[in-house]
């Protein structure tokens, strides 16, 4: 009856630890999304590490309040986890998808009345404090920043103002109309024409 144990011991002796996955080859975010869609939490962890500062940066840009922004960013990542299988590589980049998500959630939070009121106070405060965040920027971010800044310079002042209020301010077209004292239809047109020119400046094609 110890024969079976002998078999096992043989196998133990012959056993070699599987080769670890070679490091250094970085999976794309899209590749990670595929793994996440299959329930891979390790891939999710990596995706988080690589995108969380961007997500939080964007959410905080809109929401201003740091603690609330972390809450919303958490919701964003939970949604990314839940909906990973719905990400479609053919439709675009994973980072765009995540940031689109993040922006939407941030805006949803702003629209919940109290958050919005608190934020408006904070925005006033922030704008008197520093014009821009003082976190050191990586070269990659700086390049993207410059690219967008250049594209933004290529559209009209009125379009730029409307787009900034909408995207970075999280204001609805109606709120923007009130802020600028122009009809909603005018804001809508500025947003659409401005986005069309930005799209061309940035070379976005579908």
């Amino acid at each position: 009856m110890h024969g079976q144990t002998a078999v096992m011991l043989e196998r133990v002796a012959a056993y070699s630890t599987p080769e670890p996955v070679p490091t250094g080859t970085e999976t794309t975010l899209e590749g990670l999304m595929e793994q996440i869609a299959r329930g891979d939490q390790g891939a999710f962890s990596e995706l988080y590490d690589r995108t969380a500062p961007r997500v939080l940066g964007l959410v905080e840009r809109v929401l201003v309040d740091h603690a609330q922004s972390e809450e919303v960013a958490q919701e964003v990542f939970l949604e990314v986890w839940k909906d990973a299988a719905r990400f479609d590589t053919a439709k675009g980049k994973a980072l765009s998808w995540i940031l689109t998500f993040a922006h939407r959630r941030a805006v949803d939070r702003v629209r919940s009345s109290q958050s919005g009121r608190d934020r408006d106070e904070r925005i006033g405060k922030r704008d008197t404090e520093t014009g821009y965040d003082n976190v050191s920027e990586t070269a990659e971010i700086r390049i993207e920043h410059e690219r967008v800044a250049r594209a933004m310079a290529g559209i009209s002042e009125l379009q730029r103002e409307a787009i900034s209020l909408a995207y970075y301010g999280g204001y609805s077209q109606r709120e923007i109309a009130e802020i600028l004292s122009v009809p909603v239809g005018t804001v809508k047109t500025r947003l659409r024409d401005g986005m069309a020119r930005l799209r061309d400046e940035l070379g976005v094609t579908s």
Partner: protein
Amino acid sequence: MTDDKSFDPGAEELSGAYALDAVTGEEAADFEKARRASADVDREADEFTETASLLGLAVTPVVPSARMKADVMAQIALTPQRPAESSRTAEPAGEPGSARATPAGTPPRAERATEPATAEREGSAEATPASAASPRGQLVRFPRPLRYLAAAAAAVALFVGGGIVGNALTSGTATSTNQAASALADIMAQADAQKLSQPMGDGTATLIWSGSLARSAVLVEGLPALSDGKVYEAWYIDATGARAAGTFRPATDAATWHVLDGTMTAGAAVGVTVEPEGGSAQPTTDPVLVMKPA
């Protein structure tokens, strides 16, 4: 504030505002209708969404707190994933346009009462036969980095309820399952927790262990079912022979895991055999699995 509809030249004019999230739920629904009706509007919406995300890329990143990651990892460990939206091949011939109409690549908007896409999503989930079972099925996938689950160790009951079927030596009662789940969470929570995976049958077997606790657990996806009167039995194996470490049964719809009884000595391997009900004192069949920590 002007709500006058006559102000709106048409819902498709909302493409810019929509991509910038500057619309109300109702306006978003109107625009989504317009986009479903026109390929041009749909393309413009995609391009504007991409353009907006580039605005997002230009924002200075903010480093999140370490706590945020721990919270997120604990949450996802306990959160089932949604199935993919109706796959194109499985799509019933009914509405060829509808798969496109709910852009699969676009994150859903917040659940709003006026949101038609919500109903569509639910509809498509129902149409997918696997979807009823899959939220459970998804959850059982075992996380690779063990440490993250440590944060979720407190939520042991959820862990069990979520579809990972634990098997203690005396399997069956909620208490013993909870104890086994606690033991598993304990092992994973150790700073020296380690993991080893290898293919087994159609699935993967994973051994996790902690030297400081001298305990281990084996997790198997797709462990074959056994005929009546048979159980799986785990063993610690070292130069002195095999020590019985508890019996367990395969989970029917989930990953099977078993926390081994007894102490894991340094250098011991873990084996699994098929044994008669009640287990054996020594293995009586060839092992179906042998794993040796490095």
